[in-house]
């Protein structure tokens, strides 16, 4: 939701489908493809792919960006666990604001209320 809000502020349209990994390009976000590949590699188990993704990101954006990207990936890998382990629902205002792209990207299948 903040990705879309950021785009609206800067009058840019980001391809939100990029969050599913189903976009070949950057999705409208500078270096978006490299960032997505880096996130996928960090959460994956292929160390060679991770080294490649890390090098590509650092070459394109530099060491400080790599550090901040790794930090964000790490932090959200943790936040997701807090959210899923405590069973928190999406806030009503966020649910309303994101209903269209959750439906378009079929993200509602991850809702905690649907899990037994």
């Amino acid at each position: 939701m903040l990705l879309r809000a950021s785009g609206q502020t800067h009058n840019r349209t980001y391809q939100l489908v990029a969050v599913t990994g189903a976009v070949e390009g950057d999705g409208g976000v500078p270096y978006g493809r490299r960032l997505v590949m880096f996130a996928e590699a960090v959460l994956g188990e292929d160390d060679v792919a991770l080294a490649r993704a890390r090098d590509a990101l650092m070459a394109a954006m530099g060491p400080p960006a790599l550090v901040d990207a790794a930090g964000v990936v790490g932090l959200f890998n943790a936040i997701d666990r807090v959210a899923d382990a405590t069973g928190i629902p999406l806030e009503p205002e966020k649910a309303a604001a994101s209903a269209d792209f959750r439906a378009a990207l079929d993200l509602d299948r991850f809702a905690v209320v649907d899990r037994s």
Partner: protein
Amino acid sequence: MVEFYASAFHPIRDDLSAAHARAWTRIARPGTWWDGNARVAIAAETRRASGCALCRRRKEALSPLAIEGSHDSLGQLPEIVVEVVHRVRTDPGRLGERWYRSVIARDLTEEQYVEIVSVVAHTVAIDTMARGLGLDAPPLPDPEPGLPSHYRPAGAKPGGAWVPWVEPAYAGAAEAGIYPNERPPANIMKAMSLVPEEVRSFFDLVTHQYLPGAVMRDFSREYRAISHAQIELLAARVSALNRCLY
């Protein structure tokens, strides 16, 4: 660069290094429901979970509950704690309320559960960043002696989550500062409010590893070496990979 990442190949912001050092210090100390030994053991078990054969079989199964067996654990914690640590670490996207109720029914309190989740989350945040940078996971701290405080907020009540939480209107003096004053707290902030110290600790990490709450929506300027859009793309991709709707 502060000592926590003194040998890192990539320069790491001092504020971020310091936040990680503080997190490790807090994990080593007695918490609210677990002592320092148990908290460090939970962090160690979090690392152990990645190589657990049972967790791997469950992850590959259509239903994780259909697979029985024993976890490959370090043997330092009760079995039910190991079950929570391993499931939260290895398959969070398929945790369900039935599973949560079953572990709470097996001699684990809701307060203890929340603190376990927090220690796992701290460890995952720091270890995942290290993996991203090609660094070894930092050595775990030595536990500090002492007893847990056993503080339970009087205002904690069942709400919208599986675990009880503290609504801002019911937050007492001991909960001061866990929520922002200028806006309603997001549910992710309320999620661990049954153990307020864990909210403080985890959101110290959030502030430095992601963004301070006050600037998350300030799109007029950038606060990191990557833009808001780049940050949110990463965050959303990670959440999709973890099958986390929130």
